[in-house]
């Protein structure tokens, strides 16, 4: 019973060091940002939040270091617990409590699946250590192996926010303070991906091909659903949370393709796909962390989270606007920055995968590439909306008007994340080979020759050409083409000076997408005219929102069924003592009858 305490407690290999780097890259800037973010809070609150933050980061580190299932499980639950406390930190309003409860219950269901899988493995391996599990994995009968895969996948997918189990993510992340949600979506959901890589790629060998296909399919669904919901959401942090779902989908595309091709023996493509997945993992951690920090500083300055009420912040908060722009360019995969490199590598992986294979597999690869392309386009659209409506044109509310730039610590926090976003993009030549080495070690193939020559040369080339021409044009404009500039009102067809009410709003911006995807979003419109008399309309009211399909057709009926079942069971205790005594007699008689028969 307690005698199974594991021998090898820690394990260091290239995958753990890689994830250490990811944690370090995100947590340090977020911690610095939190100093600025918490400046006005009471000392007690500051202490609590820093202690919890430290515990959260430590538990994540230990999850990665742990060399056996037992400590993996302990620190995995500790990670969920500390992040629950961080989500519920400002417990004033009801929303964060509800978010915390949904988050904890969903992660608990995930962990329950993990526990079940770990104990089945423990049965076969005899001990909790990874090495024992690795040896036992060969002898596992296929049916047990598939059950373990499904359980582990559900467990890790719930934590990573893969689509059917993603509903906690748009609740939990926005409620947490932004330096926490940047770590949560930057690093915590990656720990779930770490789990997937550790178990499906390194421990439960030989992994059949259909595992990769399942992960790929779920990746595609997560990509598309995440970005469509992000387009429809106008709460800045919720929008970023949905984007985490989308980017996790992209990472899973890479991981799925890697497992799929490794199983089919096409090692170079598998190594490239895994390298693309890991590279996108780091990139997403960087620009998502940056975006959440920017949304935090916007929240600190304006006290608003709804982008419909913001606007014109670029003039009052230039630094935050610049950092947000860098983050937005990163996430929409625009060339010189890091998002482009990793998405581009994923495309190359799919393309070379398609070339290598025949028939249905080729079409499957091409369809997933198409899905990735559509996601990329929609993500760019979403961030045009997010950046444009939040920062550009005129402020739409009084609080947006009085916004002031945030403190120095916050800016350093954001800068510390913005610079790596650029470095990882332009400097791909130095970073891609390192990640390739990690992906080779993960797949256990040392001799896979993957030419990253193009991946390292091209970003630099693009950056040089674009910046060069831009500089040339700028100089040409500045010196040899001196024409005047006049500052005047925006073109208003000659009526009157436009004000912030005529600007394009986020709802209008995303209206074409709402109509295009209406089969999935099921939009709801309600317009109402309040009339003083037949001719004079005093007020016109228009309301529209989209229905969250997964919540409405799967989770709510489930919860309603459980509650109605519980209310029926509640009738078992109506209060009459006679019935209680009858229960005792019936159990007694029943058991005696059973004992007599068997």
């Amino acid at each position: 019973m307690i005698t199974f305490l594991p021998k090898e407690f820690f394990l260091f290999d290239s995958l753990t060091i890689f994830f250490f780097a990811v944690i370090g890259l995100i947590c340090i800037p977020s911690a610095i940002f939190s100093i600025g973010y918490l400046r006005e809070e009471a000392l007690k609150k500051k202490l609590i939040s820093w202690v919890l933050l430290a515990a959260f980061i430590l538990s994540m580190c230990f999850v990665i270091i742990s060399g056996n299932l037992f400590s993996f499980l302990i620190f995995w639950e500790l990670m969920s617990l500390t992040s629950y406390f961080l989500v519920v930190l400002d417990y004033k309003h009801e929303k964060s409590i509800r978010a915390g409860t949904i988050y904890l219950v969903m992660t608990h269901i995930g962990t329950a699946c993990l526990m079940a899988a770990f104990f089945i493995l423990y049965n076969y391996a005899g001990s909790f250590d990874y090495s024992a599990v690795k040896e036992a994995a060969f002898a596992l009968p296929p049916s047990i192996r598939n059950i373990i895969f499904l359980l582990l996948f559900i467990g890790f997918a719930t934590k990573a926010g893969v689509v059917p189990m993603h509903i906690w993510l748009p609740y939990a992340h926005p409620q947490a303070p932004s330096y926490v949600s940047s770590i949560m979506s930057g690093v915590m959901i990656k720990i779930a991906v770490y789990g997937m890589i550790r178990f499906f790629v390194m421990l439960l060998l030989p992994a059949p091909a259909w595992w990769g296909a399942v992960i790929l399919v779920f990746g595609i669904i997560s990509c598309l659903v995440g970005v469509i919901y992000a387009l429809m959401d106008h709460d800045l942090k919720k929008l970023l949370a949905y984007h985490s779902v989308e980017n996790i989908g992209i990472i899973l595309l890479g991981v799925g393709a890697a497992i799929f091709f490794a199983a089919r023996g096409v090692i170079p493509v598998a190594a490239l796909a895994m390298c693309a997945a890991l590279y996108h993992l780091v990139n997403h951690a960087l620009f998502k962390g940056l975006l959440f920090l920017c949304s935090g500083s916007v929240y600190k300055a304006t006290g608003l989270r709804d982008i419909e009420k913001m606007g014109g912040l670029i003039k009052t908060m230039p630094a935050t606007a610049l950092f947000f722009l860098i983050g937005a360019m990163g996430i929409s995969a625009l060339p010189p920055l890091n998002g482009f490199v990793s998405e581009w590598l994923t495309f190359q992986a799919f393309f070379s995968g398609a070339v290598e294979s025949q028939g249905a597999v080729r079409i499957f690869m091409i369809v997933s590439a198409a899905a990735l392309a559509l996601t990329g386009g929609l993500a760019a659209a979403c961030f045009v909306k997010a950046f444009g409506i939040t920062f550009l044109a005129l402020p739409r509310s009084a609080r947006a008007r009085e916004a002031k730039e945030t403190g120095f610590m916050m800016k350093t926090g954001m800068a510390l994340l913005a610079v790596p976003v650029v470095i990882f993009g332009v400097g791909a030549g130095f970073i891609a080979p390192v990640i390739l080495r990690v992906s080779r070690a993960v797949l256990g193939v040392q001799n896979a020759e993957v030419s990253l020559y193009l991946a390292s040369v091209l970003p630099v080339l693009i950056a040089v050409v674009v910046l060069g021409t831009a500089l040339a044009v700028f100089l040409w404009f500045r010196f040899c083409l001196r024409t005047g500039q006049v500052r005047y009102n925006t073109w208003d067809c000659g009526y009157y000076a436009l004000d912030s009410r005529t600007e394009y709003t986020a709802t209008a911006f995303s209206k074409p997408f709402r109509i295009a995807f209406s089969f999935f979003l099921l939009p709801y419109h309600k317009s109402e005219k309040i009339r003083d008399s037949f001719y004079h309309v005093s007020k016109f009211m228009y309301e529209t929102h989209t229905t969250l399909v997964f919540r409405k057709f799967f989770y709510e009926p489930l919860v309603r069924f459980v509650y109605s079942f519980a209310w029926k069971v509640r009738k078992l205790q109506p209060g009459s003592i006679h019935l209680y005594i009858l229960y005792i007699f019936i159990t007694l008689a029943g058991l005696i009858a059973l004992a007599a028969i068997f």
Partner: protein
Amino acid sequence: MLNTIMVIIGKVFALAIFAPLVSGIIRKTKNTIRMRNGPSVLQPYYNVRKLFLKDEVISKNASWIFYAAPVIVFAGSICALALVLMARPGHLVSNSAAILIAAFFVLSLGRFFMALAGLDAGSSFGGMGSSREVFISSFAEPAAFVAVFVFCMGGGDSFRVSGVLAGFALFMVVIAETSRIPVDNQETHLELTMVHEAMVLEYSGRSLALIELASHIKQMVFFIMLSWCLFPAAGTAPWGWAVFSAEIGVIGIAMAFIEISVAKMRLFRTVDFLSFSFFIALAASIASSLGL
């Protein structure tokens, strides 16, 4: 290595200068078919020259993005042109697809900043234009990428069914990207129909000139891709300028004919238009997987 770079730079300059002529030709053919005289083929050059010399009127609410956008769009299209020229189909099979996709990404960089600039001025025209532009391009990307995949997989040397199908899908994407009639009307200022025009409504003077040049070059980039798709054999040596410009001319005239014969579609019908092109691209990929 050095001389290939010099050759590419030379070609980039040549094609950059040659690009406005193509749209001039297209406009000229449209007018002649409509039995009208219309402006001369060199009209785009005159426009650009005029705009470079005029003063600029900039909106009060505009931020630095309003200045930076035209420069980035122009630089982006130049870089896309360079990339397309680098990606010679045929012998570098796996890399040419990657470079073409990188070209698409660079074009989306320009589009991203142009959409932001549209929103920056704070007028509803700009917002409408950027929302529609981004909407159309995000649906065009999957079809374009699949078409490029299939075309490069086929190894653009010999005449293949999958190549032609991919070319046809790419042709429909080009119509959407270069804002030709069925998807978007270049010449109108009617807010109901304009997409690309709406975004650049606020611009004037030299930044408008830069944007015009950038759209011409972008059109040239797409026409070059199309020419490799539809006339694969022509790509081999002796690589005469005449043969190449003939192909571009044919594509331009075909584009003009389509512009004349088709009425503009409703915005949300473009989704069906682009998904139709996507399915053609998918059909091309099925054809290529069958080895056609």
